[in-house]
């Protein structure tokens, strides 16, 4: 449990674990923050075709996913995020969805 906010600290999701050696001059925490920032950017590209978006909460340990009408859910990790996204979008977020893939394949051209 976090001694400051009383939040229960759960197991770190496999996709968020630090694997391999740290980069020179970069701490694990800095790497974790950079990875979370990049993850949020990718997640927003994936969620956009479903009219959803997400951001990190202030503590940097949770994600907030929401729709355009203001409905939001706070989740701990990617597994919870996908479940919440399915609920908020009223359709399953599908990584094989043609519309999503076409959007992502155009991502690099959008930058």
């Amino acid at each position, binding site marked *: 449990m976090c001694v400051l906010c009383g939040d229960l600290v759960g197991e770190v999701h496999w996709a968020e674990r630090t*694997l391999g050696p740290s980069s020179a001059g970069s701490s694990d925490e800095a790497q974790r923050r950079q990875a979370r920032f990049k993850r949020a950017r990718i997640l927003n590209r994936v969620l956009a075709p479903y009219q959803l978006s997400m951001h990190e909460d202030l503590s940097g340990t949770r994600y907030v996913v929401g729709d355009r009408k203001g409905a939001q859910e706070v989740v701990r990790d990617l597994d919870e995020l996908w479940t919440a996204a399915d609920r908020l979008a009223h359709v399953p977020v599908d*990584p*094989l969805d043609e519309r999503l893939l076409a959007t992502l394949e155009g991502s690099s051209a959008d930058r």
Partner: protein
Amino acid sequence: MTHRERLRLTVITGFLGSGKTTLLRRALGDGRPDVAVVVNEFADAGVDQELIGGACAWVVTVSGGCACCERREEVLIALRQILDAHERGRLGALRHVVIETSGLADPLPIVTAITLDPVLRHHFKLGAVVTVVDALDGEEQLALHPEARRQALSADRIVVSKTDLAEPAQVKALEAKLAGLGVSVVTPAPEPWADLLSASGRHERVALPEAGAHTGNVTSASIKFDQPLDWVAFGVWLSLLVHAHGLGLLRIKGVVPAAGIGSIAINAVQHALYPPEHIDSPAVPARLVVIAQDLSADSITRSLLAFQRAA
């Protein structure tokens, strides 16, 4: 608390009478005190415990049904018993646990249940699913019994048994049938037996199907990587793929090259994903094999690459 290395888990499966116990006895050889065995018998009373008992640290029998369905919870209890005895120091130098399934069991739900168990997942790492296929009757069993096909498709490694009793043409026909399913064959020889339970070289021994192989509505893709992947984008993709299509993902296994990190071993069974591991061996080929049911292997490959572009 003393840190212990996770126990390596090997699942030996194969259709009724294919030679699973014989294979296990050969693997155990004159005695392997570092191995414990869970034997699953479809019948109420089994004989395998007597055949194996003296050659390993401990045998637990789960009888009266298949480990993949009605006896799955009992298998988990057996593994917890072994783990408890190990933690108390009663099993000496235990390093491996082998589950020998019944002849009708589907190995994937067993692996999934262990992966999802809140305790066992931290104490076991999946070594390999080894499937024994009978050279005499295997071709017919694969044609007639979906259980036999599921066992073959689940395999990291196929061992063909009874080749000394079969005609060479029979063995070739069986190998062709297995190749059609998208799995490679290991021809029996004295060397692999002791090696089957080895803790090292797991990834080198993975039997990887080639791209495009299929049977019925099962497809496989072998995705090769000529440049490192963005690990964050890969994590987003794989977590969503497993979430959305876990039931259809019979297996995802292999090694991916992650930019700035190195080689990472991936091992997923349906909705369950073993925590990816960083591996040091540069000799391991970087490719990811996806075996899926009712899903397009080409779409999965395209999806992986599209998520990489979003990074």
